[in-house]
């Protein structure tokens, strides 16, 4: 497929189909509606396509659970309040070790919040989100092309680790139009799913998250922990820019990282040496990599479209070694280049 101008939500949907995802269950919520609409338009025309608009977010994620258990590549998408409802099913997916891709096109919260872009669900996404000891992988795209690439990667990683994977896109990524190229990238044949419930003759596969014997559950938890450690060791993704000579390091992800880049250019024109650290995986978070990148800087500024959530991971990474300040807006307000520049200037005056 050649490069085309596409809305983020549509590009994410189309990228999933090109990664072999023929199965989608969803419920309307702004600002991700174009995603579910595109899925209905495309999948209902495919012979092996499955599309169901469910009665609720809860039902959608449990349909995902069924389809994932049946061995299909499957996706659902939502935003803030819908993700809260999906947490039950995400916890069950993690417990039963079923692969699925879940897209959150973030809006402002808490509660019904608003429909404008935000990065307010970082805590929820990176700390499991539902009940019990578990993690989901979390990818945070910063442009439409990257959203396409990460969605396709997400299906492979979900299958590889038998774990739910979250695409944490802010509302800007979902709503923005950018040129993107979507390649055929269906690697599902690489993942044998002999654990799936397929009704194969004589098969007695059981998919469950219930372990009534605490010793057995403890072993299950330890096995999950081993898997999470493997993901932490192998799957961290991040990007740096202008970091080699930087006195100040900005940490930002998604849309905010793009505003941070503009602020960095302006700061450098003023002679302030600023660099960017952009986590692409929010879980696993690039803890060691961030500390290493900040090694020669004096201080660190965290920019987010929230009241400050990722900042706790940044502080965890730095282990108190650098002063950390915050700049951001919540509720659907996008921080401006000027605001971030001011935060940089303030940080540059600190000793």
């Amino acid at each position, binding site marked *: 497929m050649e490069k085309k101008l596409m809305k983020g939500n549509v590009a994410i949907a189309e990228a999933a189909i090109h990664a072999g995802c023929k199965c989608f269950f969803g419920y309307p919520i702004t600002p991700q509606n174009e995603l579910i609409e595109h899925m209905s338009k495309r999948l209902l025309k495919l012979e092996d396509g499955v599309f*169901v608009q469910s009665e609720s977010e*809860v039902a959608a994620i*449990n349909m995902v*659970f069924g389809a994932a258990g*049946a061995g299909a590549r499957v996706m659902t998408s939502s935003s803030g309040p819908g993700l809260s409802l999906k947490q039950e099913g995400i916890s069950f997916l993690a417990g039963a070790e079923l692969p699925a891709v879940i897209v959150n096109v973030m809006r402002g919260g808490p509660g019904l919040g608003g429909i404008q872009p935000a990065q307010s669900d970082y805590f929820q996404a990176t700390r499991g989100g539902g009940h019990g000891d578990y993690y989901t992988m979390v990818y945070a795209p910063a442009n439409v092309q990257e959203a396409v690439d990460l969605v396709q990667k997400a299906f492979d990683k979900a299958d590889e680790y038998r774990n739910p994977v979250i695409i944490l896109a802010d509302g800007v990524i979902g709503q923005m139009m950018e040129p993107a190229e979507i390649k055929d990238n269906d690697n599902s044949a690489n993942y044998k799913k002999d654990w799936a419930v397929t009704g194969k003759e004589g*098969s007695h596969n059981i*998919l469950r998250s219930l372990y009534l014997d605490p010793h057995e559950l403890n072993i299950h938890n330890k096995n999950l922990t081993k898997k999470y450690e493997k993901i932490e060791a192998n799957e961290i993704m991040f990007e740096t820019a202008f970091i080699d000579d930087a006195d100040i390091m900005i940490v930002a992800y998604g849309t905010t990282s793009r505003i941070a880049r503009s602020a960095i250019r302006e700061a450098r024109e003023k002679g302030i040496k600023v660099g960017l650290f952009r986590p692409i995986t929010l879980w696993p978070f690039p803890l060691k990599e961030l500390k290493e990148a900040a090694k020669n800087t004096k201080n660190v500024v965290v920019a987010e479209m929230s009241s400050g959530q990722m900042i706790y991971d940044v502080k965890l990474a730095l282990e108190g070694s650098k002063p950390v300040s915050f700049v951001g807006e919540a509720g659907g307000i996008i921080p401006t280049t000027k605001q971030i520049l001011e935060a940089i200037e303030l940080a540059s005056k600190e000793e």
Partner: protein
Amino acid sequence: MPNFNKTKMITDVTMHYCPGCTHGIIHRLVAEVLEELNINDNAILVAPVGCSVIAYNYFKCDGIEAAHGRAPAVATGVKRVHPNKVVFTYQGDGDLASIGMAETVHVASRNENVTTIFVNNAIYGMTGGQMAPTTLVGQVTTTSPYGRASKNESGPIHIAEMISTIQGPAYVARVSVHDVPNIKKAKEAIKKAFQYQLDGKGYSLVEVLSTCPTNWGMSPVDALKWVKDNMLNVFPLGVYKEEK
């Protein structure tokens, strides 16, 4: 004369159900029907949360465990991926008629080609005898200690009647297993329900009136009598919907 054999589809795992509970009978009926229809080897069971949560240990087929009340949604996901396999949910009254009511209504409304065996014993068994949506008025449970009062909780919900008002489903019936003639009728209804699925006609639900001697505080024999004397007039047996 034919020998009375153990059903092939039921595993040798010791069942955890309480003595006198009718889950064992209903399991056997489902297994017998699936064998007679030659589909026991490629059925997929969706287990609920409640007493039958580990039913997948007893049915020798693929099994997937749903969150509380979500079995119809999970069954939808499974069936859409494997439309040629027989998919069925086995759910109790708390699971199906309370926390999972939205899923229950919409699986019927979509006329999803799956079968539900709905075990109604008018109480939450697994959690220790709390009030269910199908608890009778006046019935004492651990959360209706003075009897389900029409003032506080109103009366029980009628699933077979309710689901039969929806345009979708192919077959809806209520049966009971409190005596042998009714057990035979229950089996016929269960067979019919699966036949509708095999014929691709859509959703089928069989509500089975069942006992809970432990939480009702009765002997198994008294419990069977209680179904006959108290449940049958509140939950009339019969076929509520049947697509021709």
